């Protein structure tokens, strides 16, 4: 396997290889209308939280739907828990919880009806365990799903993915469209699953989200995995866009010498800086001056990618 098993950040190295939860070996899936993935190889260790990061249309959902055996690869091999995704599909799905990216539910059912239906299809996590999740996400069970807001539908999707405590959680953009409070609940649930030793395969187009919960991140772009990095490595290289308004400030040129600071631009009375890696040296310097305003923005994924390229770091 190209990428091997890396230990999750901040934990002791995995001494024995417990068998990977997810393994894709040179998987290609092309669609007639374009799109898809090419020669994707990935391995996710049992117990790991793996973030799958890429812009929309990069192939994240394609990869995830291949894992679920909803679509079949043109070439290459996919296994979960060492089992073949196609041959052992039903046995695998007993151990997997899945939240689709384009979540569609049975709109005419209530959340209660849908969840009990899925409990039956799964041969039954007891309702009490589902109720715990329902309470946690504060879900209204007795309204038809079509009457729920997008955020509440997403909660129903999350509960059905989490119920029965599956060994592997496959979550396709789990927080998209959720308000920040619920996003936090989702992150907490993911972290908790990881603490219980379960594996999480999580896709996102937001770097900060993945950075918060994942141990390792795979970057996918235009159907190819271009980098797989530990989160702490990635954080070292991540780019921040900083806008500072000084009451009385230094010459912009003076800021350019601070470690990590790249471009410096004066725009009106604001100074715009691009900072790679830690913000600490900049913040220390800034503390000497009187500021009117300070804003730090994490660039979108494309900018992060560009930064990675421009920094000339060897990818993969």
């Amino acid at each position, binding site marked *: 396997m190209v990428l091997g098993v890396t230990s999750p950040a901040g934990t002791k190295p995995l001494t024995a290889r417990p068998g990977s939860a997810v393994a894709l070996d040179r998987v290609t899936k092309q669609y007639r209308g374009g799109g898809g993935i090419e020669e994707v190889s990935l391995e996710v260790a049992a117990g790991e939280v793996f973030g799958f990061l890429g812009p929309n249309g990069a192939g994240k959902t394609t990869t995830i739907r291949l894992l679920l055996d*909803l679509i079949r690869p043109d070439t290459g091999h996919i296994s979960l828990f060492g089992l073949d995704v196609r041959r052992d599909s039903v046995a695998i799905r007993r151990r997997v919880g899945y939240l689709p990216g384009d979540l569609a539910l049975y709109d005419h059912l209530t959340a209660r009806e849908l969840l009990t239906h899925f409990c039956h299809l799964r041969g039954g996590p007891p309702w009490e365990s589902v109720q715990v999740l329902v309470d946690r996400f504060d879900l209204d069970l007795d309204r038809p799903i079509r009457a729920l807001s997008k955020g509440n539908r997403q909660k129903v999707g999350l509960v059905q993915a989490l119920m029965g405590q599956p060994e592997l959680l496959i979550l396709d953009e789990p927080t998209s469209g959720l308000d920040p409070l619920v996003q936090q609940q989702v992150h907490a649930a993911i972290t908790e699953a990881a603490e219980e030793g379960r594996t999480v395969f999580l896709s996102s187009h937001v770097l900060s989200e993945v950075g918060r919960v994942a141990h390792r991140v795979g970057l996918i772009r235009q159907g190819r995995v271009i980098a797989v990095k530990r989160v702490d490595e990635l954080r070292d290289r991540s780019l921040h866009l900083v806008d500072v308004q000084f009451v009385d400030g230094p010459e912009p040129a003076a800021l350019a010498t601070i470690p990590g600071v790249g471009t410096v631009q004066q725009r009106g009375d604001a100074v715009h800086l691009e900072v790679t890696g830690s913000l600490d040296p900049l913040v220390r310097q800034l503390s000497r001056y009187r500021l009117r305003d300070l804003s730090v923005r994490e660039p979108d994924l494309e900018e992060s990618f560009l930064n990675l390229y421009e920094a000339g770091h060897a990818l993969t």
Partner: protein
Amino acid sequence: MRSPDRRPAELHSVFERSFHEERRALLGWAAGLVALAVTMLAMYPTIRGNQQFSQLFESYPKAFRSMFGISDYTSGPGYLRAEVFSLTAPLLLSIFAILWGSDLVAGEEQRMTIDVLMANPISRSRVVLEKCAALVIGTAIAAGSLWLALLVGARAVHLDVGVAELSAAAFASWLVATVFGTIAMAIGAATGRRGVARGIGALVAVTAYLLSSLAEIVRWLQHLRPISPWYHAIGVDPLANGFQPVHLLVLGGIVIVTVLLAVVSFDRRDLGT
């Protein structure tokens, strides 16, 4: 929207959910078929033994009469054949089955619920088979309602028809509708497109009907009749001849082969793309 008093449905299987989704439509179709039976039976007393009707229809060309199943119009079986079983009832049942069948599998894909459904540990074959079972039984309930209404109603208006013959006609109507419903379902399972399934299902049903009815009057088409499901259902006149196992087995065979094709094609495809 909110209906707190509604008891939550306990859906144990894909079969039960498919049924649950269709329950209102099924009720509507069954009610419609009962209404058809009641209306037709209500008119029968004015027709029974009415010489003018007999003469009127006898004045029609023979080809026309055989095409529309009209013979012996004023007798009980003749009346039911012309008004209910020669076209109306099996056609309505077939429309119901095609509409539902085309949606059963393909609808899950077009509404994109296939992803959450197939995240459960159930095989694709089981999904198709359970949905097919729902279709077969749902169509039987619709056909059964018609049968029961005719059976009871015929007594009320003193329409003289044998129980076995009436049952055979209703059974054949159910079976032929099931044929077209499963064809529509299979096309949906093979393509994931509800519109295509609906269109082809309807096309097959109409073409087969034209073949079977034109064959009554066009000599060279006659030997082609057995390829039309309609021939085995109504062309062999169950109201006169009762249950005819060979013809029913042909229809049953078509259903089984179609369902197998649906299972195989659904199992091989990329879903929801």
